[in-house]
């Protein structure tokens, strides 16, 4: 068991392509850290640098208070679960799991004990004699996990391990991974582009964009206080609504020139972005203005009833927004809908995308 510490870690391809730009993350012993971001944000590169599969251009990677920059992957005492599982196709499940232990010269009986224990934990015992191609996607996933846990490593690394599974299985495996990780208490780094996976799994969530960290924190903290418009629009589904405004001293002006009442937010002169979650609002029946809240009149573009709630897609000030309404919505395409967002639910970002209010 170990902590993982990244200090100013950088990766430059060739002479100029900066894939990872000075990342600092500290992961406590036993925590599950999720790196999330759109494809190309550098999260996989970062994970592979921790694994030792990718050289480190600058900064240090420390595992269990030991700098591992120059160690090969096998010397770092890590185990990795790959996106395509990377099971050895010609080996039986048993041998797939035992291979790493054999390479370390572990005695046979001990290998056998470890493999069988891991197989038991993952309910793989009846599959030990099969080859990977005879297994379903979910079973392969478990074998890949099994290969990681038999090693009893200091750190688990997961590279989008669930992205090849169908939605139902993905949900199931997500819970299993979480429980397994808790139960084993092994420090883990988990890469995904799926924000739901990130939210539900993470002890610490790291949102990355264009090679840099946008925000680090507990998932719900990040959800409630996104540090930038990027994080705001990446975390949460449907994402946070973002509306561009300018201030003329006594009220706010939307993109298309519509005036709306003041909200009490300190909107800077050069303009700002107001954000609100689709669920953080109420539908107003009358014209009453609500002190300190934001009142918006949406032109409805469409309504999607999904059962317990409905998504109402609308347009305001020329920008698209979505709101969640409990139950069925009476609104119809072409109607207008007045919504009120309470002041404490409003997020204010500067023109540069950085959060302004707290």
């Amino acid at each position, binding site marked *: 068991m170990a902590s993982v510490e990244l200090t100013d870690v950088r990766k430059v391809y060739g002479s100029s392509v900066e894939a990872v730009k000075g990342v600092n993350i500290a992961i406590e012993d036993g925590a599950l850290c999720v790196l999330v971001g759109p494809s190309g944000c550098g999260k996989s590169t970062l994970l592979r640098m921790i694994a030792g599969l990718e050289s480190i251009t600058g900064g240090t990677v420390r595992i269990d208070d030991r700098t591992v920059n120059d160690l090969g992957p096998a010397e770092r005492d890590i185990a990795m679960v790959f996106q395509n599982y*990377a099971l050895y196709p010609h080996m039986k499940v048993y041998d797939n799991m035992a291979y790493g232990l054999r390479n370390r010269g572990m005695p046979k009986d001990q290998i056998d004990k470890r493999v069988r224990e891991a197989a038991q934990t993952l309910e793989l015992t009846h599959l030990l004699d099969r080859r990977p191609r005879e297994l379903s996607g979910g079973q392969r996933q478990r074998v890949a996990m099994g290969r990681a846990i038999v090693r009893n490593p200091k750190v688990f690394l997961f590279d989008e391990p669930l992205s090849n599974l169908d939605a139902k299985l993905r949900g199931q495996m997500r819970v299993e991974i979480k429980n397994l990780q808790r139960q084993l208490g092994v420090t883990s780094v988990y890469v995904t582009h799926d924000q739901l996976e990130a939210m539900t799994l993470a002890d610490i969530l790291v949102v990355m964009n264009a090679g840099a960290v946008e925000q680090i924190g507990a998932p719900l903290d990040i959800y409630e206080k996104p540090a930038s418009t990027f994080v705001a629009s990446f975390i949460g589904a449907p994402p946070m609504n973002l509306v561009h405004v300018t201030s003329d001293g006594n009220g706010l002006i939307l993109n298309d020139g519509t005036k709306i009442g003041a909200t009490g937010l300190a909107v800077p002169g050069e303009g700002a972005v107001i954000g609100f979650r689709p669920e953080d609002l109420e539908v107003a029946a009358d014209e009453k203005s609500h002190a300190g809240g934001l009142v918006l009149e949406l032109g409805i573009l469409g309504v999607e009833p999904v059962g317990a709630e409905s998504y109402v897609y609308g347009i305001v000030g020329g920008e698209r927004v979505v709101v969640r309404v409990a139950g069925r919505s009476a609104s119809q395409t072409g109607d207008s809908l007045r919504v009120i967002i309470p002041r404490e639910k409003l997020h204010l970002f500067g023109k540069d995308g950085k959060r302004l209010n707290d």
Partner: protein
Amino acid sequence: MIENNPIGRFIAHFILILGIVIVAFPIYYTFVASTQTLQEVMRPPLSLLPGAHFWENYKAALFGGVGRIGGVGVGRLLFNTLVMALGIAIGKIVISILSAYAIVFFRFPGRMVFFWLIFITLMLPVEVRILPTYKIMVDLGLIDTYTGLILPLMASATATLLFRQFFMTIPGELVEAARVDGAGPWRFFKDILLPLSKTNIAALFVILFIYGWTQYLWPLLMTNRNDMATIVIGLRKMISFADADTEWHLVMVTSILAIVPPILVVVLMQRWFVRGLVETEK
């Protein structure tokens, strides 16, 4: 099947059988001739059924009269040919798989230069540069040696390219998984790459074995001594002697002995051979 047309299928079977007759007839005819006496062979037309002298002729060719072909027995020629075919097949597979491994799984200065150096030899069959190659073999003292028969035919780009192509389809994650599992280059090669290449190796083996067994020009040049000749060369020497005392029935036996081993290899390893052939040449 779009049209279940019995007449069409009957014609198809008929043409195929006709094709087989054409393809098999020369071999069958030679086999029939190999079971007749010399007098019967020399007096056409030959019967279309095997004669009664199978054991007699084959025994005579294999064991009787030592040194039938310029003082050398058929067994020795078959052995030479086997050594040459196996040497070429195994040697080529070994050096090709190693060089393809280097080119695909390592990055090092000069990698592409080396790749092209090997690749260009694809365009230079041995027939094109026989004379200078022959001179080099003389200078190196390799005439009438197995090394001389085998080594120059061992290098060719085809096998390297096939392995390269196959290696490139191996997912990078598999290499990474092996590295995480503590496997270095040698372990990865031995435990993962070789077992995965089994089919390719089998296919190449058949193709290269046939290639080695059927060589003609090279052994013709490389061997002066009769006891180093291959069976094909020996056979050619048998029929090039004057007509009068050629033992044609034994020539026929030798022909059959020369073509049966490679045919067996092709037919028995058909599955790999067909797949390998169609893949190699793409």
